[in-house]
């Protein structure tokens, strides 16, 4: 899947985790795990390395956090406007790919269970 994405899988999953609002690092890790049914388990090194790059690119920014944070030591992150646009463009691109694949009768294998 990686080669089909213009965003790397790690970047895409992080942006998707932040699409619902601001989250701290551990919440992003858990969300990515949920999104992928446990297939992708990102470690803190990968997460913060990617977040660092995304902040440099202006796709993610640090957020103020909730009014009553569960843990005050945590820092929160949120999508910037350009981050939201990048995610939307990527999803549209993936939708187009899936439509093309379906038109060519390439259907996914039936899911197990």
């Amino acid at each position, binding site marked *: 899947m990686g080669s089909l994405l213009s965003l790397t899988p790690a970047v895409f999953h992080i942006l998707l985790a932040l699409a619902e609002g601001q989250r701290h*690092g551990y919440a992003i890790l858990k969300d990515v795990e949920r999104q992928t049914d446990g297939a992708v388990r990102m470690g803190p090194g*990968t997460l*913060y*390395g990617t977040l660092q790059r995304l902040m440099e690119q202006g796709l993610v920014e640090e957020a103020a956090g909730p009014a009553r944070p569960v843990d005050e*030591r945590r820092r929160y992150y949120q999508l910037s406007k350009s981050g939201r646009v990048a995610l939307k463009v990527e999803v549209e691109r993936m939708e187009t790919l899936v439509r093309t694949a379906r038109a060519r009768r390439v259907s996914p294998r039936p899911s197990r269970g």
Partner: protein
Amino acid sequence: MGARASIADVVYRAVLRLYPRRFQEEFGPDMALDFADASDEAWMQRHWSGLLAVWFRSAADVVRSLTRQWMRTRLPLVTLISGVIALSTAALAQTVVPRGPFLAQVRPNDRELVILLLLTACVVLVIASTIIFTHWFLRPLLYRGSPRRR
């Protein structure tokens, strides 16, 4: 689990010191918190098997991200280039210095010592200039972007 987790947390925090300083200062505390939370959760769900899985995953993640972070600083590349330049200069000096006209004025007994001193001076000069060059001229390239402060 308390003591075991604490030892693992201490080890993990010690390992975090291997990251480049800026990354460590910016994300180290969050990484330590995430590791501690992941360990606690794994212990509550699956005890030792869960804890071991978190430790192995974290070890692999550290190795991967540590390499990536150091490569991002470009320091390994600068070190390699500096080493190659220093060695080449030393090799060049080794062929040029013994034939230098100034050696005619040195007594034959002192000649080897003078050559050795000149070669050492060359190598030290190259290393010093590489360090100065790296720090003053390559700094903007090596450390792109300003660090975030809390």
